[in-house]
């Protein structure tokens, strides 16, 4: 029997090791109640510095031009664009939003594997569906004869693939979607020679964001409310923080965040028992995918919901569209978020 015992001990040790190993992958957590969520390849500080180096020095509308972008992971290089592009391929939703905002219809669209070609608020026109961005068919892309390919380094994370795309057509890659959505918009605009139009759109957005923020403060009795951004996903509950698409918009609107969410990170992950950590005066929540497959029933219809500060104090509690508030990654999506905020504020009066 000793052999059996030693074998069992070995197997048990393996099990413990593996379990320890996989909880070890959570090491980015800050301990106790909070663990930071995936933020991508680099820290956000670096990513902003990185984004600041990208773009072009060409004069308005001037071609050929050179655009600095990520030609390999964390390597800035130059892509030459000989003439104003007319056949653009976008490799993710953010780039699609950027092109749509500039009035350009892409000829081909890649997207996340688990959603359709484009969110409902964007029109795809006659564009070809290229399928998921992690299973690109280069033959199909080549046959479309593009003169520009837009994407992010995070999504096209293989350096070989980056090189292959460059061989097909000039390719401009931003670091990552989400937190850099404004920088990405300007970079994409630089690639198609619409940098002035893009800056106008961004200025208009920022002006409007400030106005909407003021409207919200007014609706809240003159003082800007703290806003909690709750997102229910399958097996995960997140409070979105400052370094996210929605975090940037709320910051532009001058709306403060409760302490837990006021951090330089994408989001904080919480459990269903910790839902009362969503401490904002306003609680805006969305559900990714089917409500059935998330913990929506256990949280929003659950017993603890009534103890969440905003619910208990009769504050604003509102469901928002996941497609724009959390998945929208461009200026068109941001404008829709502002529309929603304005409508919610109007309801309060």
């Amino acid at each position, binding site marked *: 029997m000793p052999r059996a015992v030693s074998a069992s001990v*070995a197997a048990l040790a393996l099990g413990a090791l593996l379990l320890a190993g*996989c909880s070890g992958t959570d090491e980015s957590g800050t301990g106790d109640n909070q663990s930071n*969520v*995936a933020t991508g390849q680099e820290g956000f500080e670096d990513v902003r510095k990185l984004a600041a180096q990208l773009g072009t020095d060409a004069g308005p509308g001037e071609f050929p031009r050179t655009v600095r972008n990520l030609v390999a992971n964390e390597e800035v290089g130059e892509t030459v664009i000989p003439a104003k592009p007319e056949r653009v391929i976008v490799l993710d939703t953010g780039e699609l939003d950027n092109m749509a905002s500039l009035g350009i219809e892409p000829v081909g669209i890649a997207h*996340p594997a688990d959603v359709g070609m484009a969110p409902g608020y964007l029109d795809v026109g006659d564009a070809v569906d290229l399928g998921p961005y992690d299973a690109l068919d280069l033959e199909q892309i080549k046959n479309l*004869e593009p003169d520009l390919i837009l994407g992010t380094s995070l999504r096209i*994370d293989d350096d070989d693939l980056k090189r292959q795309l460059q061989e097909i057509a000039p390719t401009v890659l931003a670091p990552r979607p989400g937190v850099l959505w404004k920088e990405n918009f300007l970079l994409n605009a630089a690639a198609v020679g619409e940098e002035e139009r893009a800056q106008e759109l961004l200025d208009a957005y920022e002006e409007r964001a400030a106005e909407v923020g003021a409207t919200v403060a007014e609706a809240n009795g003159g003082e800007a409310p703290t806003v909690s951004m709750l997102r229910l996903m399958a*097996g995960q509950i997140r409070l979105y923080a400052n370094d996210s698409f929605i975090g940037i918009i709320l910051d532009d609107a001058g709306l403060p965040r409760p302490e837990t969410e006021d951090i330089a990170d994408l989001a904080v992950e919480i459990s269903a028992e910790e839902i009362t950590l969503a401490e904002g005066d306003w609680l805006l929540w969305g559900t990714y995918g089917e409500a059935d497959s998330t913990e929506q029933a256990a949280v929003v219809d659950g017993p603890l919901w009534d103890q969440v500060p905003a619910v208990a104090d009769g504050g604003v509690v509102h469901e928002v569209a996941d497609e724009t508030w959390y998945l929208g990654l461009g200026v068109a999506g941001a404008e829709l978020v502002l529309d929603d905020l304005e409508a919610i504020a109007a309801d309060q009066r």
Partner: protein
Amino acid sequence: MIAAPTRTARSRNPVRSLLPRPRPRRRVVVAVLGTLLLLAVVSAVALSLGDEPTTPAALWEALHGRGPENTVYAVLEVRQPRVVLAMAVGAAFGVAGGLSQSVLRNPLASPDVLGISAGASVAVVSVIAIGSLGGPIGVVPIPVAALAGGLAAAGLIALLARGGGLRGRRILLVGIALSAALTALTQFLLTRIDVYDAQRSAAWLTGSLNARGWGEATPVLVGVAVLLPAALVLAHTNRALLFDDGVAAGWGVRPGRARAVLLLIAVCLAALATSAAGPVAFVALVSGQVARRLAAVPDIPPILAAAAGASLVLVADTIARTALPSQLPVGVLTGLVGAPYLLYLLQRRRSTRGTP
């Protein structure tokens, strides 16, 4: 309790098993040539199909770098690497399956059933998960992780099944149990990472050749190029393994060491193939058995297992990439074929008992 059929098999007909049976060379040669011919035809078809189909004449031109730029690009830059990768992965899995089935003298003992692929999978998903949770990505390349995971799983199975010999059924049960634990762990990791990455891992876990190119094919090609000849050189040893240890010793072969070397080759090939394409389900199991049946010899000629595996993966991948509405991972198709085949093998255990 668990019976030990290998013992009954060994003692079933001691006189007959002591006489080396002449290998029906001709049939083996015919089978190899036939499979290679099939492989050539299938490759030609696979090279012709894609976003826009290519005619045989245009294909011939494109293979020589002539013709419309887009066609040349499609054939040489996109389809050719994928076809080569499919064949390399299939050949590696096939040889791995054939070798392990021969050595362990069990039609069910292939790397995919024994949990080698599951070990590689855990390693790969861990690497993806670490990247997705903000850790350093790319510190451990995925092929290296898969190789390490596969070898570790093999070592663990050998350790845990120790004492029952490598041929017993215990190794099967241990492998299956280990697979269950490793799969549970993989699934846990999948629930811990972003849904986008989970989708990617899920495709990887079923085995997929989507968006793969020369970068992935090279390690497998090198592995096959080195290890297949090694397996062929050891082929006569491999034959001796079919007979009792005494006979093997009489042939001047040390059965324990030879078996260990052959199994090591099998594990390396399976892990290499897994690193490039993920654990393409049941290819190793099925190709080994198909090769054995085609050749109608008790041991499995490695070259035939390689050709069978290559054809299987290439056919499945070509169907998965062209005939279905969306590009499905090739492992889904091989799984749909392979699992019923496993059930079928279970039904026929007696007729194949004692031979791999």
